[in-house]
């Protein structure tokens, strides 16, 4: 069988190939493990590769398939962002603080995908505790963009994006707090979806900012994203913010026509800051959708420019508290030399966290502290309400909102590290969906300077189906999503 094709195949194609006995799960897994060992180093996409376990599971999957057993993802490979807890396997959050942390349990997402038969190839690199937009804050070093190794793949789920884009694995999980799935998906030319807040369980997903974090997927087609999302999503009694709404058959309904679908184009997105060529790619993508029967309507999100400062107050506040549990007592890094309890804490946390994480913790501490709470935290909560209202108003007129995912294509590693604000502004188009809890997806929509750029679609609460239908329709008419970086072909 043609082993060289396996790497380029989507989950759906692999599933079909296995069911038609063109190749086995073991062949798929071994092919990809070989690719990971060949290319993983140059991309630095993985923190842990679980080869042995994957091979064992592949053999089991093949046995099951041989006796006619089936599961939606049986024998299919994927990778998990290294902040999903995996029982018995290092889960570091790319931080020195958790460089030795072996969770005694599986995150609900991991459990769900395991139950569907998926096989994990490893844990992917990321920004430390998911705080970053370039994957440069990782304790394990930067991840490289497969389209150009000098460039950032985006972040924080850069390892997952890079691994999928370079065909080391067909799909991977990620998390998105302010764009951490959609932005790297755009910058590496793949599909990434962040579902509605509450759609995917956060249990076992190590928290950055609890009211914004949401797990999602990276894939090389919308179809694959639909397949995977359907398996990982669902109500979880271990997460108070999980919503008890049935999971629709995303894959089954994906071919539905988009005729008459009203797509809102946000005027504010095309103001300053957006690369002209990037804007052009987005407009062309919308023409494709228009050709498919969608109606494009210009809309306003008047407060959207406030989303970045709002996000940095809210996310920092929540992270400052979420990360207080890292004190070296029960798990994780513990400082060696200290003279008393206070020094023990300060050294453990001072040495265990990287610079960006410390900045965010201090920012969060500041905005919650006595005398500043009202001016910053409470104010940000009110502005969050305004932004959320803007979306609500927009969705009274349209079914989906479209726009660019990022202001420009991938940037050079190191380019924005010294200017946090410039780095933060890279998330200007993605943050709104997190603040309002809405589902968002980025799909490749062209190239600017030989680098991929993304079209972002944002849907109504629990409106993943129409996002997927629209994205799928687009991918039926375009081939941007099938492009693979030259050196990874």
């Amino acid at each position: 069988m043609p082993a060289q094709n396996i790497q380029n195949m989507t989950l759906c194609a692999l599933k079909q190939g296995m069911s038609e006995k063109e190749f086995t799960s073991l062949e798929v897994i071994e092919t990809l493990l070989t690719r990971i060992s060949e290319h993983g180093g140059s991309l630095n996409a993985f923190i842990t590769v679980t080869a042995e376990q994957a091979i064992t599971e592949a053999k089991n999957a093949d046995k099951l398939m041989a006796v006619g057993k089936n599961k939606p993802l049986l024998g299919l490979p994927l990778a998990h962002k290294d902040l999903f807890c995996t029982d018995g396997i290092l889960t570091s959050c790319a931080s020195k603080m958790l460089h030795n942390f072996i969770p005694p349990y599986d995150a609900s997402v991991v459990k769900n995908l395991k139950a569907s038969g998926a096989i994990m190839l490893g844990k992917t690199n990321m920004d430390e505790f998911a705080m970053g937009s370039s994957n440069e804050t990782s304790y394990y070093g930067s991840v490289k963009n497969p389209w150009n190794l000098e460039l950032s793949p985006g972040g924080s789920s850069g390892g997952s994006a890079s691994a999928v884009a370079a065909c080391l694995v067909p799909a991977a999980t990620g998390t998105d707090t302010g764009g951490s799935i959609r932005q790297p998906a755009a910058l590496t030319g793949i599909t990434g979806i962040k579902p509605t807040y509450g759609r995917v369980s956060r249990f076992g997903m190590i928290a950055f900012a609890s009211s914004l974090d949401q797990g999602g997927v990276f894939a090389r087609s919308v179809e694959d994203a639909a397949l995977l999302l359907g398996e990982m999503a669902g109500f979880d009694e271990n997460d108070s913010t999980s919503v008890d709404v049935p999971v629709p058959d995303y894959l089954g309904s994906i071919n539905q026509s988009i005729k008459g679908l009203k797509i809102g184009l946000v005027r504010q997105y095309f103001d300053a800051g957006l690369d002209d060529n990037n804007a052009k790619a987005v407009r062309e993508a919308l023409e494709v959708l228009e050709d498919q029967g969608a109606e494009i309507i210009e809309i306003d999100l008047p407060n959207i420019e406030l989303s970045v400062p709002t996000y940095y107050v809210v996310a920092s506040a929540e992270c400052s508290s979420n990360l207080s549990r890292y004190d070296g007592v029960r798990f994780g890094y513990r400082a060696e030399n200290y003279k008393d309890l206070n020094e023990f804490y300060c050294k453990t946390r001072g040495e265990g966290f990287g610079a960006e994480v410390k900045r965010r913790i201090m920012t969060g501490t500041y905005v919650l502290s006595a005398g500043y709470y009202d001016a910053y935290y409470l104010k940000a909560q009110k502005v969050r309400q305004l932004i959320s209202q803007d979306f609500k108003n927009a969705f009274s007129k349209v079914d989906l909102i479209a726009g660019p995912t990022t202001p420009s294509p991938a940037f050079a590693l190191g380019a924005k590290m010294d200017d946090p604000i410039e780095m933060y502004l890279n998330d200007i188009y993605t943050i709104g969906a997190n603040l309002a809890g809405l589902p968002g997806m980025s799909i490749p929509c062209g190239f600017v300077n030989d680098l991929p750029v993304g079209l972002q679609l944002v849907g109504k609460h629990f409106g993943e189906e129409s996002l997927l239908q629209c994205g799928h329709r687009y991918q039926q008419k375009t081939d941007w999503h099938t492009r693979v970086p030259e050196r990874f072909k």
Partner: protein
Amino acid sequence: MSLNKEQIKYLAVLSRMDIKEDEIQDVVEKLSSIVEFVDQLQAVTTDGTEPMAHPLAQGQRLRIDEITEYNERDKIQLNAKNINKGMYLVPKVID
């Protein structure tokens, strides 16, 4: 509003993180730029706007009061470095 060195030191104390003397200037500058950036929120009119703490509008779900977790101490404590008599050790706590 920019922050000064003393404020940074206070935030470091509150968040229990050592910031080395040679790091402080950089932290002062970067945190100041972040705070100045988020200061643009002050200009927004939010009178009568309800603060939004959470994207979900629903109420808290309640768990039935039953014991579902049992002793897994040995497994759990594999992640802890300093244990004695089943307890997590820390430098002397002074009340």
